[in-house]
C-alpha cells in the first residue's frame, strides 16, 4: 500500500501545483502541424506564438497576468485536430491561434464553438472556414476564392494560348484552391487542358509527369502542399520537362527549396505581400533575426492573430470569448501586419495576394501584385 499512497500524494500535489499555475496565468493555445510532413508550417506558427508570448510577458502581460502557451499538435490530420480542439476546450483555454491546414481548422472550429473558445487562424485559407456562420472564428489571412483569382489573373496574362494543367491533393485546402483557380480561369475564358488529383503523401509522381509531358503542358498549377509540389518539380526536371510549377500559399517555407535544390528557380506561388517587409513588422523581424529565426510565411500572421486577441482582451477587460469577439469585430487593430479590421463573417476586410517567384539560391521574392476581388 505504501508506494500507492505515495503515488497518490504525488499526484495530488502535482494537481494542486498545476491549478495554482492556472490561477495566476492566462493560458492561450497555438495549434498546428508540429509533426508530420507539414511540420515546417507548424514551426512557423509556434515561432510566432512563442515570440508573442515572450514579448507580451516582458511588457507586463495582459490584465496584470502573464500569458502561458499551450501547444497543440494536429499533424495536419482532421481527427487529431478535433481531439486537440476538445482538449483545449476542456482545459478552459479561452483563445487558440490555429490551425494551419484548412482540413484541421474546419473540424476543430466546431469543437471550439461547442466549448466556447475563440479561434483565429493565421493560415487556413479555405473559404468554408468563415462561411459556416460560426460565432467564434476569425482569420488574419486571405481566402482561396481571392487567392485563386490572383493566380488565374497571372496565368491568363502570362500564359495566354499555352497549355495549363491543374492538380490537387484532395485535401480541403488543395482541392479548394484548385477549384477556385479553375473557376477563375474558366471565367476568363481560359480552359485548362488537364484537371487531376493525387493523394497527399504520395512520393511517386512520374506517371502524372509523363502525362504532363504528353500533353505539352507549359504550366502546372498545384493545389497542394510544398512537399508534394517539390517532388512533382523534381520528377518533372528528371523527365526533361521545362514546365513551370505554380502553387498557393503553402509554398512559403524555405523547406521547399531544400527538397528541390536549385531546381526551385522559376517556380511561382501566391501569398500575401511579404509580411517581413511591412514597416509595422520591422522591430519584430529584427528580434527574430537575433534569435536566428527567419519569420517567414505565417510566422508574423500568428503573431498578429495573438496581438488582435490580446489588445481586444485589454479593451474588454475580460477573456470571455463572446465579449472579446464583439470587441474585435467592432474595432480596428494595429498589428505587425498593419491595421486589421474584420467583417461580420470573421474575414479581414482588405486582402491582397501577390505572386512570388523562387530563385536558384533558395529564396523567393514578390514579382507583381494583383488585387483580389
Amino acid at each position, binding site marked *: 500500500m505504501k508506494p500507492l499512497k505515495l503515488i497518490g500524494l504525488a499526484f495530488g500535489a502535482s494537481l494542486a501545483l498545476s491549478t495554482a499555475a492556472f490561477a495566476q496565468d492566462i493560458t492561450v493555445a497555438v495549434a498546428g502541424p508540429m509533426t508530420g510532413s507539414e*511540420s515546417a508550417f507548424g514551426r512557423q506558427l509556434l515561432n510566432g506564438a512563442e515570440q508573442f508570448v515572450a514579448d507580451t510577458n516582458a511588457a507586463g502581460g495582459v490584465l496584470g497576468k502573464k500569458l502561458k502557451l499551450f501547444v497543440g499538435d494536429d499533424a495536419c490530420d482532421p481527427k487529431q485536430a478535433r481531439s486537440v480542439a476538445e482538449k483545449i476546450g476542456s482545459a478552459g483555454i479561452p483563445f487558440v491561434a490555429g490551425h494551419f491546414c484548412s482540413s484541421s481548422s474546419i473540424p476543430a472550429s466546431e469543437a471550439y464553438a461547442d466549448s466556447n473558445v475563440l479561434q483565429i487562424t493565421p493560415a487556413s485559407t479555405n473559404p468554408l472556414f468563415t462561411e459556416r456562420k460560426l460565432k467564434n472564428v476569425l482569420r488574419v489571412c486571405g481566402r482561396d476564392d481571392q487567392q485563386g483569382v490572383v493566380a488565374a489573373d497571372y496565368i491568363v496574362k502570362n500564359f495566354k494560348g499555352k497549355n495549363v494543367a491543374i492538380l490537387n491533393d484532395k485535401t480541403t485546402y488543395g482541392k479548394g484552391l484548385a477549384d477556385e483557380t479553375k473557376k477563375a480561369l474558366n471565367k476568363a475564358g481560359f480552359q485548362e487542358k488537364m484537371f487531376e488529383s*493525387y493523394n497527399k503523401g504520395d*512520393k511517386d509522381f*512520374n506517371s502524372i509527369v509523363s502525362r504532363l509531358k504528353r500533353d505539352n503542358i507549359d504550366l502546372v498549377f498545384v493545389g497542394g502542399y510544398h512537399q508534394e509540389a517539390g517532388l512533382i518539380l523534381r520528377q518533372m526536371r528528371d523527365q526533361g520537362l521545362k514546365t513551370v510549377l505554380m502553387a498557393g500559399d503553402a509554398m512559403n517555407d524555405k523547406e521547399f527549396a531544400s527538397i528541390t535544390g536549385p531546381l526551385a528557380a522559376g517556380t511561382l506561388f501566391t501569398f500575401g505581400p511579404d509580411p517581413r517587409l511591412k514597416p509595422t513588422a520591422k522591430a519584430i523581424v529584427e528580434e527574430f533575426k537575433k534569435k536566428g529565426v527567419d519569420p517567414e510565411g505565417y510566422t508574423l500572421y500568428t503573431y498578429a492573430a495573438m496581438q488582435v486577441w490580446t489588445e481586444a482582451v485589454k479593451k474588454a477587460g475580460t477573456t470571455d470569448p463572446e465579449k472579446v469577439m464583439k470587441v474585435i469585430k467592432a474595432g480596428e487593430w494595429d498589428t505587425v501586419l498593419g491595421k486589421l479590421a474584420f467583417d461580420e463573417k470573421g474575414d479581414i476586410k482588405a486582402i491582397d495576394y501577390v505572386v512570388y517567384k523562387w530563385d536558384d539560391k533558395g529564396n523567393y521574392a514578390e514579382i507583381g501584385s494583383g488585387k483580389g476581388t
Partner: protein
Amino acid sequence: MDYFFQQLINGLVLGSIYGLIAIGYTMVYGIVGMINFAHGDIFMIGGFIALITFLILVSIGLTMVPVILLLVLLVAMAVTALYGWTVERIAYRPLRQSFRLAPMLSAIGMSFVLSNFAQVSQGARVKPVPPIITGGYTLHDSGNFAVQLSNVQIVVVATTIVLLAVFSYIVARTRFGRDMRACEQDQTMAALLGVDVDRTISMTFVIGAALAAVAGMMYLLYYGLVDFFMGFIAGIKAFTAAVLGGIGSLPGAMLGGLAIGLIETFWSAYFSVEYKDVAAFSILIVVLIFMPTGLLGRPEVEKV
C-alpha cells in the same frame, strides 16, 4: 508508343523499390511463417542511415559520387542489418514457441517502436537531400514526346537486378541457402540434421533488413527525401506485392513488386491518378480469388 515506354520505365523503377522491400517480407514468412510488420520501418531506418552516412561523408569532404554511393550502400546495409538482427533477437525469438499470433503482435509493436524512435531521435520533419545523381538520357525523341531515362532510374534498376541475382544465388547455391531452405521445410528435422536453426533465422532477418536498407537508400536517391512515417505506406505496398507474388517465394516478391508498380503507373497514365491504389488492390483481390497462393506461391496447408 513513346508515352507507353516512358510509363513502362516509371513503373519498372517504382516496382523495383517495392520488390526490394517485398523480398524481406517473403523471406521471413517463408522461414518462420510470420508476417514481419516491422519490415516497413526497417526500410525507413535504412533510408535514415543512408541519409546520415551521406551527410557525414559529404561533410568530411568526400566529393566523388560513386565512392560516396558505394560507402553509403555498405554502411546502410550493415547498420540496418544490425537493426534487423536485434529486432528478431529481442522481439521474435523469445516468442517463437508461443502461439502463432504472438510474434505478429510483437512485430506490430516493433513497428511503432521503430517509427517513434526515428521520430524522437531524428525529428518529425521531412529530411530532404538535394538531387545527388542528376542527368539522364533521351532514348527516343519523336518530336513531341521524348522518352527520358534518368541516371537515378538506371542506378535503381541496376542495383535491384544485381542484388536480386546475388541473393538468389545465395539461397539456391550456398550452404547457408540450403540451411535456409531446410528450415523453411521443417525446423525440427533441420535441427536434427545439424542445422543451426536460430542462426539461420537470424541471418534471414539480417538479409531481409540489408535489402530493405538498399531499398531505403534507393528511395532516398530517387525521391530525395525520407521521413519517419514513410515505412508505413511503403510497407503496406510491399506486403501487398509479396502476397500478390505468392508469399514465401523470392522471385514472386520481385514479380509482385513490379506488378504493383506497373499497375499503379499505368492506371494513373491512362485512367485516373486518383484511383491508382484502388486499382492495385482490386487486382490483388482478383488474383487472390483465382490463385489463392499468389502468382508464384506454393500451397502450404498448416501455416497462416
